[in-house]
Every structure is written in C-alpha cells, then in structure tokens.
C-alpha cells in the first residue's frame, strides 16, 4: 500500500518543476545560453554526476509504502505498520542485518566484549562473532582473502562498467564536442569504482561498520541523503516565493511599500538566525508533543517535523534573496525598456511579470544553488543543537550527533563520523562546485 508523505509530494513536485524548467530553458535562448556555459564547465559536469547519484538515492527514498503482510490467499490484505521506501527494498539486506552494537568496518567481531558461552559450557569474556558480518566465514583466518576476493570481484564489475562509460563519453563527445564528457565520465567512473567493491562486500560484511544499536552505517548514510536533499531543496521552495515577491515589489514600487518590506526584513534579519530557528522549532516541538492525535504514525510525525523545519528555515532566510532582488529591481526599473513600457501604459503587474521577473531570474537561480550547500551544512548544526530533524529521522546531523560522543572511547569509534563526513563532504563539495559554475555561467558579477 503506498504511503504518501508530504515531503514526498513536494520532492516529486520539485522534480516536475525542474523538468518543466528544463524544457522551458531549451526553448529560450537567453536561458539555454547560460546553462550551456554551465554544462561546458568540467567541474560542473563532474559534480553534476555526483549530485545525480545523490538525487537518485533521494528519489528512490521518496517513494514510500507499507509492505503487505504474508496472508492466506482469500484473506483481506493486511499491511505492516512499518513504512518503507523503494530504497529500503533495494537495501533490504543492509537494513535487515542489525548487530547488537558497534562493530568496525568489515569486522567479523563486535566492538564490545561480551560473556560468551563456549561449546564446552565455560564462559569467556571476548569479542563475540557478529551475527551477520562475515558470518559465512568458518574460519576467520580466511577473512583477508575473502575480503580481497570479494572486493576484487566488485572492482572487476566496476572496471567493466567504467569501460562502458568511457565508450559512452567517446560517442557523446562526437555528438556534442563542446561539453566536457570526460570530466563527467571520470567522476562517474570514480563513483563506480567505489561503489563496486562496496556493493560486493556489503552482501556479507558491514562495509562501514555498525552503530551503537547495531545498524549498518552504510545503510544509515544512504538513508540520510534524502533528508539533506529535502532540506536543501524544499526550503528554497518556501523561500523563493516570499523572497521574490517582496524583493521585487520593494524595488519596483519604492515609497512606503519599500519602507514596509525593508522594515520586515531588517527586523527578521536582526534576530540571530540560529536563535530564531531554535525558538520557532521549540515552539513547533511543543505543538507536536501536545497534539499527538494529528500524526497517525511516527514516520508521518517525523516527516511533518522535517517539513516544518524546511518552512522555518525558509521563512527565516528569504531576507538575503529579497535584499539582492530589491537592489537589482531598483537598477532595472531605471532602465530604458521599463520606461518604454511605462510609455505604453503597461500595467505595473504586467511589467513586474514580463520585464522584471525574467531579468532577475538569474539571481534566483544562483541563489537557489548557492543556498543548497549552506542548508545541508545547517541541518547538521541544527540537529546537533537539538532543533533539527526528529531524532528518528536519518540524517547526517543525527549521525554526527550520535557518533561524536564515542570519540572519547578507546579505541575510537571513528567509522560513523568518517562516513558522515565523507558523504556530506562529497555532497556539499559537488553542490559548491556546481553552484560556482552556475554563477559563472549566469552572471559572474553577481556577488554572493
């Protein structure tokens, strides 16, 4: 039975909007040109591949359902209370193989000693074998060989696929020689080379270890991707209409409208961001806690909290965009083609829609891509502060938060942090590089 979460709807709406925008861009030279410049940048193409991989994960994780329970043929179908996503299906192996507690990457034994009952009845305090990690090994001495064999097997598949990719870039290069396909190919190849062994190993090992309650860290990281993407994109969806409307109106109408809008954003701006978000999230938490009846399932509650977080982030961060748009609109409204429109008696609303909006759209695009990485980073900090996503939601913030306390253990439990770091770094770096290319492509002079 499909389950439709609010953020799912928004995510797929965004996908539809992006597709619509892409079609629109192809038809309009003034938009196709800048995007063409973006795609001609090797850094943009390479980071686009990485972003694409993340987005694919996020989209697979945005199709939710409740699995049917095994039933007799004639009985009415019943569904589990657990809400899963398509991604969970693909990762069923990872998800199902929980250990008791921490284990290091690729380990066969747990991180913590336990009392183990020996076959001869004696009790021994030792690191117990994991239930799943390396369970297929009869003799742990074979571990190294087994790992190497599986890794090489995975690598072989990746190398094969990489060759296909290489071939593909060669063909594409012939069709569109101006686009740096090699850069995209190299970054896709690198992803494949990492993914191949990881997939091969993950069938019998915990490639990146397990966390405190024994969940596979690799699985957690993959599940966290969606949260980051939702925060990074849905927030802008909230922020854009407010920022665009108020910014252009302030710049175009000037006078008292400008005064009022400027007052609103100076006031909002003057409350330090984290505090305003914290205050709003606290209040939201109180509301959620006291109205449990509104949220039928825990997943829906967590989802709504995620949505609220996006809304709050959006409502507190539109001021920057509005300020930029106000300035640009002030400049534009002095331009001669706007005056020409006035000379034709064109109505203000029409001037705003037909002249101002298209001519500030590059700023909106740039702001959107530039905000993305900041929002992904902000999620981690907010979750740490305790005003981020619901603790039950998988996110890099909750991962870091859970893992950081273990840095003081001896030996250090480093893998969860390292995983969160790597996944976040790759995402944010790709987003930053792509944003740079977009800014250069659209307008190198816009300062942000």
């Amino acid at each position: 039975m499909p389950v439709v979460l609010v953020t799912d709807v928004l995510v797929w709406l965004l996908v539809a909007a992006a597709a619509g925008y892409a079609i629109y861009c192809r038809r309009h030279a003034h938009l196709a040109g800048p995007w063409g410049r973006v795609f001609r940048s090797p850094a943009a193409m390479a980071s686009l591949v990485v972003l694409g991989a993340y987005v694919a994960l996020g989209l697979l994780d945005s199709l939710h359902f409740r699995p049917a329970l095994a039933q007799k043929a004639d009985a009415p179908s019943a569904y589990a209370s657990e809400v899963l996503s398509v991604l969970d299906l693909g990762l069923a192996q990872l998800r199902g193989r929980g250990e008791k507690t921490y284990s290091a990457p690729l380990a066969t034994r747990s991180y913590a000693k336990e009392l183990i009952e020996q076959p001869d009845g004696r009790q021994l305090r030792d690191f117990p074998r994991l239930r799943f990690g390396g369970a297929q090994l009869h003799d742990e001495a074979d571990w190294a060989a087994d790992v190497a064999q599986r890794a090489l097997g995975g690598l072989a598949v990746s190398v094969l696929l990489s060759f296909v990719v290489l071939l593909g870039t060669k063909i594409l290069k012939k069709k569109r020689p101006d686009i740096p396909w090699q850069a995209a190919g190299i970054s896709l190849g690198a992803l494949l080379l990492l993914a191949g062994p990881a997939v091969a190993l993950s069938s019998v090992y915990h490639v990146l270890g397990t966390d405190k309650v024994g969940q596979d860290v690799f699985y957690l990281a993959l599940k966290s991707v969606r949260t980051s993407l939702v925060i990074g994109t849905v927030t802008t969806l909230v922020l854009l209409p407010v920022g665009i409307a108020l910014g252009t109106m302030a710049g175009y109408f000037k006078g008292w409208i400008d005064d009022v809008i400027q007052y609103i954003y100076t006031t909002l701006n003057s409350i330090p961001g984290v505090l305003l978000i914290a205050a709003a999230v606290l209040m939201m938490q109180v509301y959620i806690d006291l109205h449990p009846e509104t949220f039928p399932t825990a997943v829906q509650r967590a989802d709504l909290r995620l949505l609220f977080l996006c809304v709050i982030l959006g409502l507190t961060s539109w001021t920057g965009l509005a300020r930029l748009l106000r300035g640009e609109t002030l400049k534009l409204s002095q331009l001669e083609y706007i005056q020409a429109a006035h000379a034709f008696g064109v109505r203000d609303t029409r001037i705003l829609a037909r002249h101002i909006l298209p001519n500030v759209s590059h700023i909106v695009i740039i702001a959107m891509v530039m905000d993305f990485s900041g929002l992904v980073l902000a999620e981690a900090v907010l979750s740490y502060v305790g005003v981020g996503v619901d603790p039950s939601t998988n996110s890099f913030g909750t991962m870091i938060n859970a893992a950081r306390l273990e840095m003081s253990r001896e030996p250090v439990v480093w893998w969860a942090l390292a995983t969160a770091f790597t996944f976040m770094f790759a995402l944010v770096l790709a987003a930053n590089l792509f944003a740079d290319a977009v800014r250069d492509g659209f307008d190198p002079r816009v300062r942000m």
Partner: protein
Amino acid sequence: MFAYVVRRVLYAVPILIGVNLITFALFFVVNTPDDMARMQLGARRVTPEAVEKWKAERGYDLPLVWNAAAQGTGKATRTIFFQKSVRLFVFDFGYSEDKRDIAAEIKARMWPSLALALPVFLVGLAVCISFALLMAFFRATYLDFWGVVLCVAMMSISTLFYIIGGQYVASKVWHLVPISGYAGGLDAAKFLALPVLIGVISGIGASSRWYRTLFLEEMGKDYVRTARAKGLAESVVLFRHVLKNALIPILTGVVVVIPLLFLGSLLSESFFGIPGLGSYTIDAIQAQDFAVVRSMVFIGSVLYIAGLILTDISYTLVDPRIRLE
C-alpha cells in the same frame, strides 16, 4: 554626522519593537503558557493544579495582553506581554528554570564568550585577508587556482567536523591542550588556544574566497590601469590602490558582527565546555528553557542592531565619499 547617528539610533527603535512582537508571538501566542507548562512537566498526565502552580511560579498566570481584572494602568501592565516582553527593553529578563537571574548570568558569561570570539574574529580577519591578497596577487596562476580549490573544499566541511577533528588530533593524539574546560585570567589561554585555532581555520574557506573576489573586482577597475600607467610596481598597485578600496566593503561588512561577538559561538563553546553565552543558549534550547531563549533572542537582536549602526558609522569613517558628503 551626529544627526545621522541619531537618526540611525531612532530607526532602531521600531525594529526592536518588531523583534519584541515576534518573540512575544512565538513564545506566548503560538503555544500558550499552559502548553509550555504541560510540556515542561512531562506532557500528558499533568493535573491542572500543577499547571497553575508552574505558571504562577514563573509569572505566566496573567492574561496575554489585556488584564480586565486589574486596576488603572494595571490593565495594561499586569499582563504577560508587559511583564515578559516589554520589560526586556530595560534588560529585565526574569529567571531561568533553575531560578537564576538571567541578567546576572548573561553578565558573567559574556566575558568568556568574548575571550573566544574576539581572537577568532581578529586573527581570522587578518589570515583571510592575507590569504586572499596572496591569491589576488598571483591571480591566474596555479597558486591562485589551488588556493580557490582549497577554499571551496574547506567551505564544504561542516564546522562540526572541524571541531571534532581538531579536538581529536590536538587533545587526544598529540595531548597538546586540555580537551575542554575553562579557567579565568591568563589560564584561559591554554583552554582557548584550540577553539580559537579551529574557529579561524573553519572560517578561512568562505571568507578568503569572498575577499579574493572583492580584490579581483577592484583590480579590474579603471583606476588600477591608471596606476599601472604611472609605472607603479604591481605590489604598490595592490597595496596602495586596490587594498584601500577593497577594504571598505570588507571592513564595513564585518563591523556588523562585532557586537555579536559577545554572544560567542554556539558550537565551539558547547564542545569545549567554555561557560559563555553560546553554551548557555544551547543548554537552554536543549532544556527547553523558554525564558533564557527569549532573552537571548532579544539580546542578539539588540547587538545586531548595534552592529548595523556601527556599520553605518564605519562607512562614514573609512569612505571619504560618504564622510565628506
């Protein structure tokens, strides 16, 4: 000039009132004091008496904005709005959940905050400007290219990792400094060294790249070509002509945060156990201590507005075009 400053200060008043109204709405209208009480006392199974007692102890047992039962001016003053929001204007913050005077707490905690934030600010500014100048001087060379790459990479790392990583390396691996804690006086140095270093490093990426853009933008201007046409060396052009112009947006841009230095840093303080306002805020958020959060919101806004006024003043000081007009 004087009239200008006065006007800016007067302009701040409606903004502060706006901030006050927003916080009032957030803390008392979205959720009533009753909700807060139930939340604090453990959600569902709370007796109405306990709620009333909780409210009375904190002075939340008043009507929100209008007290019809009170006498004379009491109708307006014997309300939550007046007692809890309007009184913020005279820095009367009330008491925290653990019954301490918030104002006194803030006074005591802002110095450790400043001791951490000020060095981060000053050293960070110097480091970032120098790095940006270096990149601008060697623009379009490999040094510049890799400098920018480094900046983008550094700004892609969450502050949390800088702190956790720095703590791990400096305190656990090298045993250079204590992992956390604080002491007054000169002893503070050994506790502050690491957080300051981390604060500076975590800011390098974004700031240096931004300043580099400003420098390059200035270097494309006509007066730079004029300066070169005079036969001046590239370093003279950079230091005498470009730096002076680019510093105007840089300095006036950072002035706004100077008052906010008192607020300290949320993350560093909490990780390093520095008893400043940042860790105070985080503790309050985690303990859901609404009175403290409300006070910090207000203080933060006051400081930000002070920063705005300082920005305007600093413009008039550094930019002759504004100073002399």
